[in-house]
């Protein structure tokens, strides 16, 4: 077993000697290799590798990848998870923007296989992955970094950059923001019985636009349901999927929003299940939902549903509870007069 104190270059040299017959397959993988950007800017390896609490399923993932049971995309999704969780820290390395990607070296698969079999330790595996990233062989989005650097889109004091897609005219004077939990019965009832009238009266008329913010506070399934809605959004079906979620709502943590049920609803509306399932499995939108919940907490949201109406001057009115559209109209009218 290689000792943790071994240097990175020694590992690379050692690993590079390993050959694999799967090279051609890997060439392909590189073309898909992934979303640009680890905004690695200056400097040398200033951050040391850190491997802590790597979840056991990542090892399974590595093992499956080494055995070609999963493809490169799926493996890289796992790496993205490590980066999201800051288990794998991306070293800041000087990389030219014009530098072209190389192939994933075959030794990386051996590396993954050894790691899965505990022949090398976590640190060594992480170093190998860091090497891939630093050499621009694997380029992964760093969601944390992305989150920090993405433009904050604000309406009033609300950062709407991570909200669900906007409904209605983007330039509408008024903005209605709804904080909701998919497991909340009142939210579901409001959505099923009141939302259509609100859409007709205020959104379709161009008076207001509507944003849905996740505020999952009723347990794990709430969070999972929120994540699934954004996974559906990745395939352009946010509102269809959201509609199904509210229709299927039938209690709290009683299975209607379990992983299997959510995948079932996705099947019902014809989503790409593999993509959807991977999205859920890797918690792709976890940070987004956490962000939305923080936005809610910052604005004093403690129960659901809660609505905020914001005008062009950033004046904000709060509507607590599943109130009918006439209240929204009244508030907007009042705000217009002021």
């Amino acid at each position, binding site marked *: 077993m290689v000792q943790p104190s071994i240097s990175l270059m020694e590992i690379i040299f050692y690993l590079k000697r390993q050959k694999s017959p799967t090279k051609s397959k890997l060439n392909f993988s590189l073309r898909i290799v992934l979303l640009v950007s680890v905004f690695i800017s200056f400097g040398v390896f200033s951050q040391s590798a850190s491997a802590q609490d790597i979840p056991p399923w990542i090892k399974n993932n590595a093992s499956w990848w080494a055995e070609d049971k999963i493809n490169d995309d799926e493996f890289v999704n796992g790496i993205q998870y490590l980066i999201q969780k800051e288990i794998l820290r991306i070293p800041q390395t000087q990389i030219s923007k014009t530098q072209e990607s190389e192939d994933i070296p075959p030794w990386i698969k051996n590396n993954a296989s050894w790691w899965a079999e505990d022949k090398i330790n976590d640190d060594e595996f992480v170093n190998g992955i860091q090497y891939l990233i630093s050499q621009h062989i694997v380029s992964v989005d760093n969601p944390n970094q992305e989150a920090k650097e993405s433009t904050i889109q604000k309406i009033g004091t609300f950062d709407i950059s991570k909200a669900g897609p906007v409904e209605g005219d983007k330039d509408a004077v008024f903005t209605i923001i709804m904080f909701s*939990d998919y497991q*909340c*019965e*009142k*939210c579901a*009832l409001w959505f099923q*019985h*009141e939302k259509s009238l609100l859409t007709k009266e205020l959104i379709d008329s161009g008076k207001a636009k509507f944003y849905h913010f996740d505020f999952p*506070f*009723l*347990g794990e399934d709430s969070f999972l349901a929120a994540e699934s809605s954004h996974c559906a959004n990745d395939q352009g079906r946010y509102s269809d999927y959201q509609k199904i979620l509210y229709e299927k709502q039938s*209690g*709290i*943590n*009683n299975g209607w929003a379990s992983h299997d049920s959510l995948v079932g609803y996705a099947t019902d509306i014809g989503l790409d299940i593999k993509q959807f399932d991977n999205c859920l499995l890797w918690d792709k939108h976890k940070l987004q939902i956490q962000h939305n919940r923080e936005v809610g907490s910052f604005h004093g949201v*403690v*129960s*659901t*549903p809660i609505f905020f109406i914001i005008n062009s001057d950033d004046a904000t*009115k*709060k*509507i*607590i*509870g*599943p*109130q*009918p559209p006439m*209240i929204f109209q*009244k*508030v907007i009218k009042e705000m217009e007069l002021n």
Partner: protein
Amino acid sequence: MNIRYIFLAIFIFVSFCLPLIVVTEFLFLEPYVFFYIPIYQLADFLSIVIISALTGLVLSMSVYRIRFLQASTKKLRSGLLGSILGVGAGACCGGIGVALISVFGTIGIAATAFLTNLEIPLRLLSIGILVFTYLMIVKDLNRECKLNFDVKEK
């Protein structure tokens, strides 16, 4: 007829019903004080009114029995149990649920889930307990207040 106990029953009814319709979001306080019973939640609202009315009746009658007939507090406790069940049922996303979750964390979520998922059975159970307690009190009152003219004076 003792008017004081009628007022007590009305007072208990109002003090149960008012907070309950706020918590279950039929009476809104922000941005306007607004009372709204959607047709799809009529049964929910009626169950709250029934539970509050029965609570008012049962508790005031129990107090009367305890005060004047030195009866035990057993039926008062049954009445309270029925009322509490009714109050707790459906304690989801509004006040009670949030309070439970904030104070008790995971246990609060489990309690909220239990109370919400079993909302209808719990409300029915609550009404059942209150009706049963009411009938028992009426029966007891009839028996205890009956004048027995056959008893000979010693």
